[in-house]
């Protein structure tokens, strides 16, 4: 039995056993479904529809796909092969926060890459190979508590800094799910939102991320050689930015210096940093008082202020996967399904469970995404097939790092994880 057949049977057995608890999305019969099977020659089977929950469940159990998706959109004819023939009815607003799409410091420890051009290798998230400047990499992305905490922080920011206070969206209308890998999905249903077109959705995305914000329209202007800045009394993005600036300026000088010099953040040169630090207390006082808005730091013209504010906006805004929210024909992971790259469950959670939710070590059995736990202390023998495999910490225990050829004995959920990651084989 190959490893893929093993995993497929394992998924099949899981779905069979959990048949009753597989969630059923609203308007099931109007949604398009898509599977990615375990067989490598077939990429994706989509344009499927299911009239009833039983029909869907039977299909999942029979096929036990590697990945299972359903559309955010509703269609009169979800199984039509061409998009224009599906008779689009509307689309839920879906927001995907996935650590794959943004930098986290922990990636330096566990995301490995090999340059396809020159063979150079390293860890982290480079845009280009530091040696040959090529941008094609073979990647091995891993998961850890730190990146999942950052993803959780982003989803909380999305909900509590934007969706509730700004958009007035009710907590009960939001559905959150752990994606089964490195992020969270948030879905908002409702007729009004469903009717928005892609252009209108882009406006929402831009609001949430702060993309293409106009500092001039928010008040940044040069007048008589003086820079007039933003005011925290102006509700909306202006206030969000100024609160963050205030928070930043309240940090110790050494920390401000480090952040301003960081090439992944402000990336200021030493001269600008020194000047900023000299004036930072005056600047903080000016913002706190809020009486005047003339921003005076030696050497800082409009361009430097915009560079500064741009980074602040990045910190205020939400790191989200933009196309997911804008593209109305996207398929998203089906809640309750298993993620074929980890073996973890796409776990729906209630809003009040989010704060304490810990995907890699969740004590609450009902919402634990690690479903293939070892019973009776059984262990599984594997051989590592990848050159390097980063350390994995699940359920409080650490496994690895490993190197190619290493023979290991690990609990079932770790074995499933490493097999799904395709870095090991059963022996």
């Amino acid at each position, binding site marked *: 039995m190959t490893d893929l057949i093993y995993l497929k049977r394992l998924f099949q057995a899981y779905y069979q056993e959990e048949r009753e608890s597989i969630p059923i999305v609203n308007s099931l019969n109007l949604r398009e479904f898509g599977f990615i099977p375990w067989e490598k020659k077939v990429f994706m089977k989509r344009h499927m529809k299911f009239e009833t929950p039983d029909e869907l469940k039977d299909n999942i159990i029979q096929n036990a796909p590697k990945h299972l998706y359903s559309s955010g959109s509703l269609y009169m004819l979800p199984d039509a092969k061409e998009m224009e023939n599906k008779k689009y009815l509307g689309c839920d607003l879906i927001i995907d926060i996935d650590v794959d799409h943004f930098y986290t410091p922990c990636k330096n420890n566990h995301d490995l890459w090999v340059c*396809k051009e020159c063979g150079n290798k390293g860890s982290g998230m480079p845009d280009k190979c530091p040696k040959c400047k090529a*941008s*094609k990499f073979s990647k091995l992305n891993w998961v850890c508590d730190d990146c999942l905490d950052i993803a959780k922080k982003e989803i909380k920011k999305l909900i509590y800094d934007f969706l509730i*206070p*700004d*958009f*007035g*969206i009710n907590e009960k209308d939001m559905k959150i799910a752990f994606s089964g890998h490195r992020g969270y999905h948030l879905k908002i249903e409702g007729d*009004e*939102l469903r*009717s*928005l*077109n*892609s*252009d*209108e959705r*882009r*406006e*929402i995305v*831009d*609001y949430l991320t*702060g*993309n*293409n*914000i*106009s500092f001039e*329209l*928010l008040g940044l202007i040069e007048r008589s050689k003086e820079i*007039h800045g933003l*005011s925290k*009394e*102006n*509700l*909306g*993005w*202006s206030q969000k930015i100024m609160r963050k600036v205030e928070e930043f300026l309240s940090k110790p000088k050494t920390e401000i210096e480090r952040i301003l010099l960081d090439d992944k953040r402000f990336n200021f040169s030493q001269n600008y940093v020194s000047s900023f630090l000299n004036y930072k207390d005056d600047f903080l006082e000016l913002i706190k008082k809020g*009486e*005047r*808005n*003339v921003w005076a730091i030696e050497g800082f013209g409009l361009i430097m202020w915009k560079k500064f504010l741009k980074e602040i906006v990045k910190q205020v805004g939400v790191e989200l996967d933009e196309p997911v929210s804008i*593209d109305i024909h996207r398929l998203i992971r089906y809640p309750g399904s298993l993620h074929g790259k980890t073996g973890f469950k796409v776990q729906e959670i209630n809003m009040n469970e989010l704060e304490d939710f810990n995907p890699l070590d969740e004590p609450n059995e009902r919402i634990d995404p690690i479903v293939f736990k070892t019973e009776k202390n059984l262990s599984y023998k594997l051989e590592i097939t990848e050159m390097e495999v980063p350390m994995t910490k699940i359920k409080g225990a650490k496994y690895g790092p490993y190197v190619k050829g290493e023979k290991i004995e690990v609990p079932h959920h770790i074995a499933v994880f490493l097999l799904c990651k395709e870095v090991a084989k059963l022996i």
Partner: protein
Amino acid sequence: MSISNELVNRYPWLPSLKKYYNDIGEKPPVEFIAEIFNSPDNHQIAERVLNIFKAAFDNLEEIPNYQIDNLNVYVYLLLKIILYALNNKLITNRIANLYSKNAYSDMERENNESDIYEISHDLGLKINYYDPPIEYGLKIVKDHREPRRTNFTIHYIDYLRLASNLRDEYRKLTNNTLINGFVFVQNKTLIRLIQEYVRNKLLIEETDDKASLKAFIKEVSRIQGFKDLYDKILSLWVERKEDFDFTFKIDIKSKEELLTLYPPCVLEVLKKAEEGQNLAHHERLYIVWFLLALEYPVENVINIFSTLPDFDREQTTYQVEYAKRKNYTPYQCSTLKSLGLCMAEKYKDELCLTGYGSKDPTERKLLKHPLAYVRIKQYRTEKEEEYLKNLAKRKLEEPKNQND
């Protein structure tokens, strides 16, 4: 809450028109037209409709001698029927722009918050009215602090529906105050949003059912008053049409083939210009910068704008020449996306959507700049031509080899 009859007469595009004039709504258009031209006011109504067309063809910003009375409703309905009969996008766009601008100016002049609230309510917009105005910020100029106030907030869904087509920075949701689902809008901005509603209301899609249209025109042309008015408008159009001809394709013969190399974002702006749709500020800048970057002659770039409802040759010439001197770089793809000008999805453009550089989808690079689109398309066309040339050459050589 019921809107007043007076407001419906003044703004006949309001949905409550159906309520006050349901007798008209139930009549077939031919019967309605016959009734108009048999009424004692028929000359006045026809004159007013003609006046609107004349103003639109003269690029006026407002309808001269525009009167607000109970005939206004008949003028509006007849205008819509004639637009349907003319079935010409260029004319429809010009009329929609002028009529909506006229509504804007009128509402702005009146500046009556309670009317604006009633109008918004009638349009089904979710809106809050504050009297006294609500404060939502502060304007600080030197040491002078002035509160920012407004009478209105509008639900963000309605705001997006009306504003997302405006494509200007000031209307972007990010640059506005949004609290608890409602966007704080100044009275003027709200009126501008209503103007957009009016414009959309007049934009009748061109019909493909030419036979029904022909039959309709034939039938209504039996009504002499209508026929006279329709013919007058047509002859006015014939006289003026040349001024609005879209000369892009005709004039640039040497670079005509380049049109096939353009990204969908450029094609969309050109299409809108060709149809005489009003272009937003960013669309104008983008097309000028893009074509100038490809070294199109200034005169040809200017002519693209000749179809636009607010075209002023002198002013356009100055602006295009200024842009050429400044040598601006056209917007990059990320900016175009944010401005709502990216048309990759709409045109299902493979190069934009899937990128280039490799057959393996995971290794393809996505375009970052529309000028790169032209370069890649040009490269591909050249390669294709080269391949076809070599193929033809090989085919010519093949029989020779056989003879040898």
